[in-house]
């Protein structure tokens, strides 16, 4: 068993965790987190693929590593946009709800 394989299997398990999170989340924030956990697992499998592809003097295949960097930035953009939508939506709902509904918040 090599390290790359171990992380590949861990990535598969993380994908499972992410799917569980997406299926059981009760709110949008939970789903956003589930999506991020899932994405982390997918990237980790890609990292294992890269490590397996070590050759030509490189300790890993640089192409998947570069793709993962792009992927992480895109995943961040997605998280940020989803969070912004969620925050805006909940402020609107809080304002629309009758004033007495907000009492128990504190």
């Amino acid at each position: 068993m090599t390290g790359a394989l171990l992380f590949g299997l861990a990535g598969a398990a993380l994908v499972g965790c992410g799917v569980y999170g997406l299926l059981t989340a009760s709110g949008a924030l939970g789903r956003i987190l589930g999506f991020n956990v899932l994405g982390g697992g997918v990237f980790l499998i890609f990292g294992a693929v890269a490590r397996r592809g070590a050759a030509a003097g490189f300790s890993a295949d640089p192409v998947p590593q570069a793709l993962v960097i792009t992927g992480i930035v895109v995943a961040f953009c997605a998280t940020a946009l989803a969070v912004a939508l969620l925050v805006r939506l909940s402020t609107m709902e809080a304002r629309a709800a009758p004033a007495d509904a907000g009492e128990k918040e504190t």
Partner: protein
Amino acid sequence: MSALLVLAVTAPLLGLVPLFLLGPRTGERAALAMLAVNLAVTAGIAEQVAQGGRAPGYFVGGFAPPLGVGLRADGFSAAMMLMAALVLLLTGLFAMTGPGDMTRKVKARGSAGRPATFFILLLSLACALNLAFLAQDLFTLYVALELLTFAAVPLVCLEGKAGQLSAALTYLLFALFGSVLYLLGVVLVYGLFGTLDIAHLAGLLAQGTGGATAAAALALMSAGLMAKAALFPLHLWLPPAHSGAPPAASAVLSAVVIKAPLFLLVRLWSDLAPLPLTQVAGPIFAVCGAAAIVFCGVVALAQERLKLLIAYSTAAQIGYLCLMFPLAASDDGQWSALAWTGGTLHLVSHALSKAAMFLAAGLIAETMGHDRLSGLSGVGRLAPVSVAAFGLGGLSLMGLPPSGGFVAKVMLLTSALQQGSWWIATVVLAGGLLAGGYVLRVVVIALQHPDAGLPEARECRWRALIALALAFGAMLVGFMPLAPLPFLDIGRPLSWEGLLP
């Protein structure tokens, strides 16, 4: 190497600079100019394809795949790009600040009161769509899909109402789930083959390598694309998002945005996957498509809001493309080619007619102040051109001649009957009847005598004419000969032949 392919991806982006730095007025003009340039560029590419009889390609940075990324336009890409560019330009014209918009207080103006943001998103859509139609690398296609998502989601909630925000959030979450599934498939493909270039992969897959993992990777990518294309049963996000958006946004979302993942689904299964695998997967897609046509068609019949009705109709019409998969993947060359042409023509004519219908519905809602079907009787008097555009667009959905929908459905039907797929033929016919039901219901209501006094408002005539032009476009597609179109087969099967040293 054809420089036009690079321009198709980059030219729309150039319009972002004036939009973001200068005021909306200057930016709007620049954006419309760039959308016109985009149409010219795509027309140029189509011309190159037709003249050359082969697919032009481009290696970005001069690095040939598999190290670099390549762009390539075959007949299918060129047709889709031309359709998308046309719809985007006409929708852009519809949404521009026209004479009278500044003085009159029009509630639902084309760009929802945010012209700068609207046109930034529209131009980004043009870039993302062209990239999705041209890119030949699975990861570049992932970037294209993300670009598409990030341009489409804010379009849904431009007006900032709570319902729109929640529809946009649901849309975003579905799209992200789709991207991550797609990416997982890409990762497995890279692990198996060490390349993401479609032409190379097609060659490797045809040799039968990859086995079950390759099939799983294709299935994951397809599931991701289905979520993004709102294919039954992953369609739940579509009706609220498409019906809640401002009219011009709904039009592009329904007409062209969901076409990119559908196009990639076709690319994946007709160009990348080996034929035996496609013959296994085809019926699964067809079942999803049939369920979409029947289920969403029935739900559309029951809608009380005009825009929701059109949105459900979109979810139903997506199904027709999926019926194409088993028909086009058969060993029978003649009839599979007919199904292939029929499916493509359906994509094009649906885009034109659906854009027309959403724009018309937006004008009708603006004229009446609401879009409840029960209160629309007599709207034909106030908004005759809009109602005409809606009806003509509906003609194509119903599949009545002369319309693109008619030609496409006849081709699918013929292919299905010749290949003995009776159930597919039945679904095609049933879908037409359902579409007839919901389109005629609207038209009949619109032409009725008004129940009560009509409001003073009149439709915005020049905008209605744009909707009508789109509907006429869908009709014109109907004058195609009822035979396989050779143009769509230019450049298939995929290869970099002629470009590689």
